C-alpha cells in the first residue's frame, strides 16, 4: 500500500474532523555530501514513509531509540523540517501548500518544547524577553498587556512572576524547562510537540514537569506529540503510543493494550530491557538481549528492517519474507497495529511482559503515612494541582 504511492503525490486519506494532525507517508531524507563538489553520495533515510493521525485533545507518544527518526518526525510535523515527500495536514490544511504568510499564521497554533533546557534558551535574554518574543512575532499583545500576559504565563507554569528580569543561567534545569513551556504557551497554541522534554532532568524534577504538562493539557485543551526514549514516561502520559525503529513506525496503539501484549518483537525487546524499580520483578523477568547495534539508516536492511536483530526471526528459523518483504502496519487485535509478518507468533510468547503480574505496584510513601503528609507548598500554580494530587496518591489511577 504505502509502497505503491508516488513520492510527492501521496494518496491522501480524507480529512477527519476530529483529527488535528494527519500525516501521510512522510519521508525525510538527508543527503550525504562529500568531495570538493559536495556531490551526494548517499541518503540518510531518517524518516522513511510513516502515516499516523493525532486526534484533537490527544497525547500521542512517539518512542524509540536514538537515530530512529522520532525527533525528525516531530520537526517535520510542524514544518521546522521540509519533508522529502508525503503530506502533513493540520486541522485539514495541507502545510506544504501554504505560502509563507498563511504558514506563519498556522504556526501560531503549533509549538515545540525542546529537550535541552540549557541550549534552547538564549543566555543573553531575560525571561521576559524570551517569553515576549513569540508574543511580538505574532503581534498578540503590547505594553502593559504584554507584561501582564508574561506574568500570567509564568504563574501558569509554576514560576514566580517576580523573576521576569532574570537570565536563564539563574535558573535550575527544571525551572528552565518551565520557561520553555511558558514560551511555547505564549501564542496560545492548540498543538505542542514535546521533544524529550524531561530527559535532561533529575528524577524528582522530571515528575514535576510531567505533572505540569498533563495539568496544562487538561486546562488548556492542548494536543501533544510527546517524543521520548523512556517507555515508562510515554506510557504514563500518552493516550496512544507509536514505536519507531529505523525511520518506520513498527507498532501503534493504546498503551494499556500495547504494553500488556505487544505485537512487534522490537516493542517486546524494548519492554524487556527497561529496568523496573522492583527487585522481584527484575529477578523474574525474561530479558531478550538484542544483538548488535541499530543498523545505519543510510543502508537499512532489506525486507523488515528489524530482522537483523530480531529474536523472533531467529526463533522461527529465519523465514524468507522477513528478509524480502517490508511488513506494513496492520491490525493485530483491537486498535493495536504492528508491522510484523509474525505478530501472532509474538503474541504467543511472554517476552517483554513476563514481569507483569497481579501484585499491586509497591509505591514509595506508605499508605499509613499519607494522612500525615502536609499539603504541597510554595509553588503558586500548585493550588489547582493539590486537589487531584491528593486523590491519586498511593499508586491508584485516576
Amino acid at each position: 500500500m504505502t509502497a505503491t504511492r508516488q513520492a510527492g503525490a501521496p494518496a491522501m486519506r480524507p480529512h477527519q474532523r476530529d483529527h488535528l494532525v494527519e500525516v501521510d507517508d512522510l519521508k525525510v531524507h538527508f543527503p550525504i555530501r562529500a568531495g570538493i563538489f559536495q556531490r551526494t553520495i548517499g541518503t540518510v533515510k531518517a524518516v522513511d514513509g510513516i502515516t499516523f493521525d493525532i486526534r484533537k485533545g490527544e497525547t500521542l507518544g512517539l518512542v524509540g531509540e536514538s537515530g530512529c527518526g522520532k525527533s525528525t518526525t516531530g520537526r517535520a510535523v510542524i514544518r521546522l523540517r521540509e519533508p522529502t515527500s508525503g503530506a502533513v495536514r493540520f486541522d485539514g490544511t495541507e502545510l506544504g501548500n501554504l505560502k509563507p504568510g498563511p504558514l506563519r499564521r498556522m504556526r501560531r497554533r503549533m509549538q515545540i518544547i525542546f529537550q535541552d533546557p540549557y541550549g534552547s534558551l538564549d543566555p543573553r535574554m531575560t525571561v521576559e524577553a524570551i517569553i515576549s518574543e513569540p508574543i511580538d512575532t505574532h503581534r498578540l499583545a503590547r505594553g502593559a498587556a504584554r507584561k501582564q500576559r508574561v506574568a500570567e504565563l509564568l504563574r501558569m507554569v509554576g514560576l514566580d512572576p517576580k523573576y521576569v528580569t532574570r537570565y536563564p543561567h539563574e535558573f535550575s534545569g527544571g525551572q528552565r524547562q518551565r520557561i520553555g513551556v511558558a514560551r511555547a504557551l505564549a501564542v496560545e497554541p492548540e498543538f505542542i510537540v514535546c521533544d524529550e522534554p524531561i530527559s535532561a532532568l533529575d528524577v524528582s524534577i522530571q515528575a514535576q514537569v510531567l505533572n505540569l504538562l498533563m495539568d496544562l493539557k487538561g486546562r488548556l485543551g492542548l494536543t501533544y506529540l510527546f517524543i521520548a526514549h523512556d517507555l515508562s514516561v510515554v506510557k504514563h502520559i500518552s493516550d496512544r503510543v507509536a514505536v519507531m525503529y529505523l525511520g518506520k513506525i513498527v507498532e501503534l496503539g493504546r498503551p494499556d493494550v500495547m504494553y500488556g501484549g505487544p505485537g512487534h518483537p522490537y516493542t517486546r525487546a524494548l519492554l524487556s530491557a527497561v529496568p523496573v524499580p522492583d527487585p522481584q520483578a527484575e529477578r523474574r523477568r525474561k530479558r531478550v538481549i538484542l544483538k548488535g547495534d541499530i543498523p545505519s539508516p543510510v543502508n537499512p536492511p532489506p525486507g523488515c528492517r528489524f530482522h537483523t536483530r530480531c529474536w523472533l526471526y531467529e526463533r522461527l528459523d529465519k523465514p524468507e519474507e522477513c528478509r524480502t518483504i517490508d511488513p506494513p502496519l496492520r491490525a493485530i487485535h483491537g486498535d493495536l497495529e504492528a508491522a510484523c509478518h509474525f505478530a501472532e507468533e509474538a503474541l504467543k510468547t511472554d517476552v517483554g511482559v513476563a514481569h507483569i503480574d497481579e501484585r499491586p505496584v509497591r509505591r514509595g510513601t506508605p499508605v499509613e503515612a499519607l494522612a500525615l503528609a502536609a499539603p504541597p507548598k510554595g509553588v503558586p500554580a500548585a493550588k489547582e494541582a493539590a486537589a487531584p494530587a491528593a486523590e491519586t496518591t498511593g499508586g491508584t489511577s485516576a
Partner: protein
Amino acid sequence: MDASANPVTDGPTLIELPAGSASAVARAAAERDPSRPGNLLEVRNLSTHFFTPDGVVRAVDEVSFELGYGETLGLVGESGSGKSVTALSITRLVATPPGRIVSGEVFFDDVDVLKLSDEGVRQLRGKEIGFIFQDPLTSLNPTLTIGYQIGEAIREHLKLSRRGARDRVIELLDKVGIPRARDRLTDYPHQFSGGMRQRVMIAIALSCDPKLLLADEPTTALDVTIQAQILELIQKLSEEFHTAVLLITHDLGIAAGMCQRVNVMYAGRIVETATVNELFENPRMPYTWGLLDSLPRLDDIRGGKLRTIEGMPPLLIDPPDACRFNPRCVFARDVCREGEPALTQRGSELHMARCWATQPDGWIK
C-alpha cells in the same frame, strides 16, 4: 610500587563501626564466598569538600559504608547528591583544588587509601580498582588505538611482554563481546558505536583482574537495548571474576536489578541504606518514598498525577544543623528543622535510615 611500605591497618579496628553493621555486611560476604569473607572496602566518616569563592561546598559529608567481597552495592541519588564524588574520593581522584578530602578513612583490602603515597594509589587504580564512567567517548583517548589503551594498564601493572599483553587484550575484547577482536586492535574509538565503546571501557576496567569495579552511571548515555547488553555484561563478568561492584546510578530500576544492597544519597549524606529487597519493599525515609513515587512505571496501570518531591535539593554551602531534606519533606516537624537525625537502624541489621519521623519514637510507624 612497594605495597609493604604502606600503613596496613589491623583487623580489630572493624569493631569500632556503629550498630553492628560491619559484621552483617561481612557475614553476607562470607555466605557468598566462604574463601573470601569480610569487607573489601570500608569507608568511614569520609568528607570531601570543595573550596569555592562562594564558600565551602560539602559535597560528601561524613559518609560511611562497607562493601563486601564480590558484592554489588548501589549508590543512588540525583545530581549533586555526592555519589560520584564519593567514588572519586575512594581512589583519590578528586580534583585538588578546589576539592579536598578533609577527613575520614577509606580501607581497601585493609589498607588506608587516604594514607598511601601517590605511587601506592597509582598501584591501586587500574589494577585493584577498575573504572567505568558514563561517557565512553570522553574517557577514551581519541588519538590512540583501542588495543593500545586496553594494553596500557596490563603493561603497567602486570608486567607482561608485548606479545603476552596483546593476547590478553584479544582475550578481553572477546570476553566483553566485541566481534573479530583480533582485527579491531588497531581501530580508534570513533570507529566504535557508543555501546561498543562502553564494552572497550569494561575491557580496560577488567584488564588487571581488579577486586573492585567502580561503575559511575555506566549506561546513562546508552539506549535502552544497549543498556541491557552492558548491564548483563557487567553482571556476568563481576560474577565470573568475583569482582565487587560499586554501581553509581540515578536509576532505581537499574539498582533494583543489579545490586544486593543500596545506599541512597541526598545532599552529601547517605540517608538510607538497606538490602535491595528491604529498600524497595519497606523504605523508611521520605526522600526514598518521594523518589519511588515520582517514577512513572511500566508495571503500573496508567495513573493520573505522580506524587512529586516539591522544590530542589539544597545548596551544600554551610548547610544548617537540620535534616537536609526537611524543606522538601511533607512529613517534617519542628524537630526536623532543629537538628539532623543520625543514620540509625530500622528493623534488620542492614537497614538504616536518617529520619526523625521513622525512628522508633517517631510519628510515622
